[in-house]
């Protein structure tokens, strides 16, 4: 018997894998993908709750999240391309302009 809990556990695990990726990896592309993963984890929660409360509001939210994720991915990748063009690197630790 699969309960709401199961979906939420899955969601939590995926979310924290994403968190781990953001904190652990230095490649900006991977960080970006980890963020996508975290968003998906959240979407999963939305859909699961939606199902278990029998209301479709969660679907709408998931839709919005996707739209935002798409925008974010687009902008993020554009910035990344720019960065690579200018500084020849995609390593997060090399980008310390704000500190200096």
């Amino acid at each position, binding site marked *: 018997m699969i309960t709401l809990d199961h979906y939420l556990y899955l969601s939590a695990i995926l979310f924290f894998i994403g968190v781990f990726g953001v904190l652990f990896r230095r490649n900006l592309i991977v960080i970006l993908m980890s963020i996508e993963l975290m968003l998906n984890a959240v979407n999963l929660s939305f*859909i699961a709750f939606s199902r278990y409360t029998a209301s479709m509001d969660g679907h709408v939210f998931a839709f919005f999240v996707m739209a935002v994720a798409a925008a974010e991915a687009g902008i993020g*990748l554009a910035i990344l391309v720019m960065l690579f063009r200018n500084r020849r690197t995609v390593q997060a630790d090399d980008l310390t302009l704000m500190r200096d």
Partner: protein
Amino acid sequence: MEAVAFYIIAAIAVFGALLMITRRNPLAGAFSLVVSLIALAGIYAMLRAELIFILQILVYAGAIMVLVIFTIMLLNLREEELEEPPAGKIKTLIILAAVAFGCYGIIKVLSGAPDEVPRVPENFGSVEKVGELMLTSYLYPFEIISVVLLVAIVGVVLLAKKVI
């Protein structure tokens, strides 16, 4: 039956995610993520979220990931550019512990939600129903999200075009 399917799909999703963050080559990571995302689409299907299921495959696994892969190939990173200094053991351990604790905490908080699956009408989560909702109660957010996308498009064009 349902449980078995869930566990298999969940395992694929988690496995894909783990691969994604551990592969050094971002291209490999991207493909692992695609796997994970498609697995999630399966879970959406199980949750009778028809529209989201379709969008997940089309938009996420399709469009977004294609974009990511294109970018990776565009950058054409050489091997030495992928070099990552190994993270310190202690830092890794701390982060792992933190992540584990976070997981545990969330699970602890969330457990105890209602178990019974409510009955829903046949067309729950269908394109038609969700679309109806979006164009009635969520009309304004819906419109605004289109503006967000527009702005994102303009932004991307500007960013990628300008040579500084």
